[in-house]
C-alpha cells in the first residue's frame, strides 16, 4: 500500500516493554502484547488501569517513556504521520465539532486525512447510510443524541479506510438497543473489510460477544490475556465478568489515578 508497511507481517500492533510515566506515577508499566491483522481485541481493565494511556501511545498522541511500538510495521514516535493514515479512532470523550453538520464533520475529516476528492463524497454517503445518519446529514451535531454522535464518530473514523480501528469505550452511555446495533455493524465491518479492531469497554458481556481475544490490564500491567474461553477456564468462572473480577479483585478504583486529571492538577499548581 504505502511505504514502510509490512503487509506480510501478520501482526498489526506490536508493543514491547511499553512504559509511560507521569512524574513518578507509572500509568503503563512495562506491558507487551501483539494484535494480529483482522482480529477484534478487547482491552479491559478497571478505571485508571492504563487503557486510555496505552491507546494514546499507540495513536501517536503520547510519547512512551520507554519501550517499542509497531503499528503496521511503523513506529508511531518516529513516523507519526504514516501511522496516522493507518488507523481510525473513536475517543472516549466526544471529538466532533458541535457547530458543524454531520456532513461537514465528515468533509473536514476527509480533507484532514487527504481522502481523494473523487471518492470522498461517495464514501461519506456510504458510511452515513451504513450508520443511519444520511437523512440527518445537514443538521448541526449539537442537535444529535449521544448514540447518533457515537455513530457519526465511528463513521468518521472509517472515512479514510484505515485497516485498524481504535474504539475507546465506544458504547459508554448508550442504551442496549444502540449498543447492540453498533456491535453488529462493527462485527460486519470486521468480517467484510477485515478491519482490525482494538477496543476498550467496561461491558464484559460485549467484550465476550465481539472480541476474539481479551487483554486485561490493571495498575498499568497486563495481568492476563487470551480468548474469553481461556480466561474463564483459567479462573473457573461462568462469565467473562466473573473472570475479570477474579483477576482484578473487586475493590473500587480511585478515578483520580487518571493521568489527564493528574496533569490538570499539575497544570493548576504550576499556574499558582
Amino acid at each position: 500500500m504505502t511505504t514502510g508497511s509490512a503487509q506480510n507481517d501478520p501482526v498489526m500492533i506490536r508493543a514491547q516493554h511499553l512504559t509511560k510515566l507521569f512524574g513518578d506515577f507509572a500509568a503503563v508499566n512495562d506491558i507487551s502484547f501483539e494484535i494480529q491483522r483482522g482480529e477484534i481485541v478487547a482491552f479491559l481493565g478497571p478505571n485508571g488501569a492504563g487503557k486510555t494511556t496505552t491507546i494514546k501511545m499507540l495513536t501517536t498522541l503520547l510519547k512512551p517513556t520507554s519501550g517499542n511500538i509497531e503499528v503496521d510495521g511503523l513506529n508511531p514516535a518516529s513516523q507519526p504521520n504514516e501511522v496516522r493514515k493507518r488507523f481510525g479512532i473513536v475517543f472516549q470523550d466526544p471529538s466532533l465539532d458541535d457547530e458543524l453538520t454531520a456532513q461537514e464533520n465528515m468533509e473536514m475529516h476527509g480533507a484532514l486525512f487527504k481522502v481523494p476528492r473523487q471518492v470522498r463524497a461517495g464514501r461519506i454517503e456510504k458510511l452515513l447510510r451504513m450508520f443511519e445518519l444520511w437523512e440527518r446529514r445537514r443538521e448541526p451535531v449539537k442537535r444529535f443524541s449521544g448514540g447518533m454522535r457515537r455513530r457519526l464518530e465511528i463513521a468518521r473514523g472509517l472515512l479514510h479506510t484505515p485497516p485498524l480501528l481504535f474504539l475507546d469505550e465506544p458504547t459508554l452511555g448508550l442504551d442496549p438497543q444502540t449498543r447492540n446495533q453498533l456491535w453488529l455493524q462493527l462485527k460486519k465491518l470486521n468480517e467484510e473489510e477485515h478491519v482490525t479492531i482494538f477496543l476498550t469497554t467496561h461491558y464484559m458481556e460485549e467484550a465476550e460477544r465481539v472480541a476474539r481475544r481479551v487483554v486485561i490490564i490493571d495498575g498499568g500491567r497486563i495481568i492476563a490475556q487470551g480468548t474469553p474461553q481461556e480466561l474463564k477456564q483459567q479462573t473457573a468462572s461462568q462469565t467473562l465478568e466473573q473472570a475479570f473480577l477474579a483477576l482484578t479483585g473487586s475493590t473500587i478504583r480511585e478515578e483520580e489515578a487518571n493521568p489527564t486529571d493528574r496533569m490538570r492538577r499539575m497544570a493548576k499548581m504550576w499556574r499558582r
Partner: protein
Amino acid sequence: MNVIYILWLRQLKRYTRSRARVVASLAQPVLYLLAMGYGLGPIFLAAGMGSYRDFITPGLVAMTLLFTAVFSGIELIMDRQFGFLKETLVAPVPRLWIILGRILGGATIAFFQGLIFLCVSLIAGYRWDNLAALPVAFLFMVLIGIVFSALGSAIGSALSDAQGFQFVIGFLIMPLFFLSGAMFPLDNLPAALSFFTRLDPLSYGVDGLRHALNGGTAHFGVAADLLVLSAVSALLLAVSSWLFARIQV
C-alpha cells in the same frame, strides 16, 4: 494546503453561525465610541485636538480586532475541552498547517469584525480622511489580526483549561489595549508610560491605522509600524506553532 483552508473555513463557519458572538463583541467598542467619544469630546475639543470620536475610532477598530483575534485563538482551549482538538491532532498532517489554518481563520474573523465596527462608526458620524488610504488601513487591520490571533493561539496552546481566561484578559488584553494609544495621543507622555507604549505591539497597529484612516503624521512612522507588526507577527507565528506542536492530550 487544503488542510489550512479547511480549518480556516471551519473558523469562518463557526463565526457566521453565531450571530450572538458577532453582536456581543461589538458591544464594548461601540460603548467606548459613544460614551467616551461623546463624553470626553468637549474636553478634547477645548484642548484644540479636534474630534475625540474621530480620534478614537481607529483605536476602537484596533480594539475590536484585538479582542476578536485573541478570543478566536484562545478558542483552542474550547476545542481541547470539547474534544475536537484530538481529531486534528491524529490527522496525518504537519501541526504547523493546523495552527496556521486556525490563526488565519482567527485573523479573518477579526478583520470582518473590525470592518463591521468601522461601518457602525460611520453611522455614528465618523468619516475617514482619504478613501485612497483605505487599502493601507486594511493592511494594518490584517496585520493586527494575525499578530493577536497568533498570540491567542499561543496562549490557547499553553493553557490546558479555561480557568486562566480571566487572568489573560486582566493582565494581558486590557493592558495591551490601554497602553496602545487607542484612547490618547502618544505625544508628550510621561517617560514611564511612553516606555510601555513602545513595548505594546498594538501601539504600532493603532498608529498605522490612525494615520491611514484619519490622515496626519504617524507617531512612529508608517514604515516603522509595518516593520514592527510584521516582525511581531512572524515571531508570534513561530512561538504559537512551537507551543502547538508540543501539545499532548
